[in-house]
């Protein structure tokens, strides 16, 4: 295809503003798929993601659209819509020349709208503003357009008004994509340069590599070379997504598609890498973008040792399809053998855990999530730790640093007080207030990641009756007065329950934690003592009184089987718990470390 007839774009939107619905309409309108096939939302094709309504894996689709007798190739690249995945948005943006910025006409500009719009601007993308859901009775497009103007400097006359539900304005969207987004500017004659923006593992064909061709072209039989990983492969198939994989002769300059090349593991393919021709290598790789770094870590342990190998196999399989997920073996004195896993954020962590339990069929104990800390030792060394247990002795610590993020929160003005209180309770330092309109405001804070990552989002939602939204970007490590808070159960330190907290909060935190654990740990046949400690100093103590009564009054001949089965079932339930010493600790207890500032 002539590059002048190609447009590469993505849709960026806050979750639920209608990105998937709009994508469906575009597919339908261009006859890429029939309405019947659309029953399933084609762009997100993993069960779990559909359940949660979140697109995680970036994928792509090619729309062929004819206007005024000319056929255009419009490549729509999907982007994730949740805060955890903002890094992943970058990979899609890097492959595009333009973005549809979609805003719900009743909800207005939200935190992710802003964050994603800034990201798109950083990538020099042409932004096509779109207001969606104009069919809604409570739609207030004028206000929303004003908000867009205010926050993002968008010209009101450029805003396209659509209803992705009814199809109103879809033609205008396609028109704007063609007229306003410029065609790719590649050099057809230059050596191949293609950006890898995603990959996927297929059991039969190996890794499927998603690429955007910037210069030159790629054909079946070509020998290609990955500039960063320095590996060579022979291409066995190239094609486009229509939306299913459709083999093609070649992928030309500016096009978006995939190639298959007998690549065995996903580690051989690095997202952001540049593919060039092995025989005719390009001088310079494409700028690419930063690989997303895991921000949150937790330990995953099988409840039974025999599940260790199945767990590893399941983790490996998962990592094949999710390059932002990482894991390595670790050993915990309390929990035995397991893995330390890295995630983009909390939601990502939950999704991975669910998938493991579902697909791997293993019962897991998940330890409380932790961020990564930097420790400058007295010896002048900088250690990076993501597990409180790996902290060096206090007297060897010169400086303790924690990650800090810049957080933007958007909400109706009347919640100003509660939101500020929430941010300040979480050690936030105030940066700015910006009014989006008369009614809505955006606050910026700098906040330790550890304070925001666990339940800040939930707390914000409940404080603002669901209206508040947030987005954050990592800004760096800052020195902080941190200590390790240990938990002892039955006199033994349970490393998996340790956490790193700010000294000012440690006391209150320790008290809350032991209270919470007292509720989560069931009664035993003996008294269970729970203590919180900083170093050797005990700062809080609770005890669980021994079980007092648990006895079946009647048990005669006819009751034996039922009775035994009942006890067996209860016993089975205990298997989901991890025993430490002789105390059985349920999964919930390990997670209770998470909830940071509950006022319970």
């Amino acid at each position, binding site marked *: 295809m002539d590059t002048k007839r190609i447009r590469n774009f993505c849709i960026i939107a806050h979750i639920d503003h209608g990105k998937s619905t709009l994508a469906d309409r575009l597919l339908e309108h261009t006859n890429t798929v029939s309405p019947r096939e659309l029953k399933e939302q084609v762009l997100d094709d993993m069960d779990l993601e559909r359940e949660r309504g979140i697109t995680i894996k970036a994928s792509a689709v090619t729309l062929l659209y004819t206007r005024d007798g000319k056929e255009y190739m419009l490549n729509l690249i999907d982007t994730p819509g949740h805060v955890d995945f903002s890094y992943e948005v970058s990979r899609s943006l890097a492959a595009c020349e333009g973005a549809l910025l979609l805003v719900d006409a009743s909800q207005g500009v939200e935190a992710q709208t802003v964050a994603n719009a800034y990201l798109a601007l950083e990538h020099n993308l042409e932004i096509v503003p779109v207001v969606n859901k104009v069919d809604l009775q409570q739609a207030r497009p004028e206000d929303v357009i004003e908000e867009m103007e205010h926050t993002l400097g968008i010209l009101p006359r450029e805003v396209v008004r659509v209803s992705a539900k009814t199809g109103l304005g879809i033609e205008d969207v396609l028109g704007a994509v063609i007229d306003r987004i410029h065609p790719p500017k590649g050099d057809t004659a230059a050596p191949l340069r293609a950006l890898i923006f995603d990959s996927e593992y297929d059991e039969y064909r190996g890794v499927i590599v998603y690429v955007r061709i910037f210069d030159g072209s790629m054909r079946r039989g070509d020998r290609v070379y990955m500039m960063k990983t320095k590996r060579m492969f022979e291409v066995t198939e190239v094609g486009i997504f229509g939306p299913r994989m459709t083999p093609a002769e070649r992928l030309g300059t500016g096009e978006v598609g995939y190639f298959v090349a007998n690549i065995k593991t996903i580690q051989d393919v690095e997202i952001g890498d540049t593919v060039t021709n092995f025989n005719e290598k390009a001088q310079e790789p494409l700028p690419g973008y930063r690989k997303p770094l895991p921000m949150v870590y937790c330990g995953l342990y099988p409840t039974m040792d025999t599940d260790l190998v199945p767990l590893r196999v399941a983790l490996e399989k998962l990592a094949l399809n999710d390059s932002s997920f990482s894991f390595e073996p670790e050993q915990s004195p309390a929990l035995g053998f397991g893995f330390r896993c890295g995630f983009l954020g909390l939601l990502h962590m939950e999704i991975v855990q669910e998938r493991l339990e579902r697909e791997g069929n293993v019962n897991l104990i998940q330890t409380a999530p932790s961020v990564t800390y930097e420790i400058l030792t007295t010896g002048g060394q900088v250690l990076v730790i993501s597990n409180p247990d790996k902290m060096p002795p206090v007297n060897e610590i010169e400086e303790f640093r924690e990650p800090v993020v810049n957080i933007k929160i958007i909400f109706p003005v009347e919640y100003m007080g509660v939101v500020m209180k929430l941010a300040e309770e979480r050690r936030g330092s105030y940066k700015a207030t910006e009014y989006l309109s008369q009614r809505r405001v955006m606050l910026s804070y700098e906040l330790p990641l550890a304070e925001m990552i666990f339940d800040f989002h939930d707390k914000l939602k409940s404080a603002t009756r669901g209206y508040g939204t947030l987005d954050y970007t990592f800004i760096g490590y800052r020195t902080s007065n941190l200590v390790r808070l240990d938990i002892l159960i039955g006199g033994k330190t349970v490393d998996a329950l340790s956490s790193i907290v700010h000294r000012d909060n440690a006391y209150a935190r320790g008290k809350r934690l032991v209270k919470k654990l007292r509720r989560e740990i069931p009664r035993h*046949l*003996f008294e269970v003592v729970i203590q919180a400690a900083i170093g050797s100093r005990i700062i809080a103590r609770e005890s669980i009184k021994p*079980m*007092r*009564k*648990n*006895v*079946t*009054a*009647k*048990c*005669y*001949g*006819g009751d*034996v*089987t039922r*009775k*035994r089965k009942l*006890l*067996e079932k*209860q*016993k089975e339930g*205990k298997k989901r718990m991890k025993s430490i010493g*002789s105390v059985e600790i349920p999964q919930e207890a390990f997670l209770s470390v998470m909830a940071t500032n509950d006022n319970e």
Partner: protein
Amino acid sequence: MIMQRELTHPNALYIHIPFCIKRCSYCDFNSSVYQPDVASRYVAALEKELGGVKDHPYKTVYIGGGTPTAMKEGQLNQLLSAVSSSLDMRRIKEYTVEVNPGTVNARKAALLRWGGVNRISLGIQSFKEKGLRLLGRIHSRRDALDAFSVLREGGFNNLSVDLIFGWSGQTLMDWEEDLTEVLSLDPEHLSAYCLTVERGTPLARQIRTGSVPRPDEESQLDMLKKTINFLDNNGYKHYEISNFAKKGYRCRHNVNYWKNLPYVGIGAGAVSYLNGRRTSNIRDILSYIERIEAGRSAKTFGERLTPRRRAAETLMMALRMTSGIKEKNFTVRTGFTLRELYGDVIDRLCVLGLMGIRQGRLYLTRKGVFVADSVMMEFL
């Protein structure tokens, strides 16, 4: 001493009568409201089933329910004659029938006595009218006292009384009064059950909807402690979690269950345990009758336990008795030694003061009895 014969030949026969005048609120036994015509067919079916299992060397017979005495005299008589004509009655040492106040008079008592019955288990449950009402019993305190004396006068010198404690609204004082009152009757045997709210019963529903408060566990525990102390001090030995007897009056039939020895059960839903296999009859009364009438077996469920499971069950049942189990007998019955299976668990529970070993017997301490289920779980 356990005889090899006891391990292979059933000593106990249970006969289930699934009829009551009215269902009690807490009851989840297999029973339904008495209908004379169904009962006639049922008794005939029992006779037929009995014919197939009559040749075992039974030493105890237990007719339970339900309420056997809810049946008309003719039906009761037919059942009793079937038993006495099929079994070798000289060998039967203990022959119990469950009776409810409000279903017995002098004629029925005499009928039972002539039929060879030598032990009665009388379901009084409570002497408090509020308790009887809450439990949904059909009788008053007066009816209970009358029934007891009718039975005594009818010549029964082995009477057992069932009581229930721990129901919503019962105070410790209420319970002490019940205990005192029952002592004044001077029964030979007593069963005192802590109320269990069984799923699916009217009582469970009332508690769920809030019309009846949930029984309080702490006060149930206080009552249980009280019961054991009080009865032990008054000549009734605590020999099983909920059972007390004067010397020589333990229920042999039930002890057979707790020793996990074989038994035969007939009637709807009745369970048998023979040759290491546990089977049970179909619960539904009409289906039971139809199967038997058609000459088919009424069994619907069977399980053969693995040796390990059987060992666990043996221990689980034996620990219900305060005398526990002799390590030697455990080995005779299961083929395992206690040590090899449970050495660590037993040590741990002994340290916690929940179990003890005395003269080669492993038993639950008083403290262990209160948490018997949790202790037993350790052995599964």
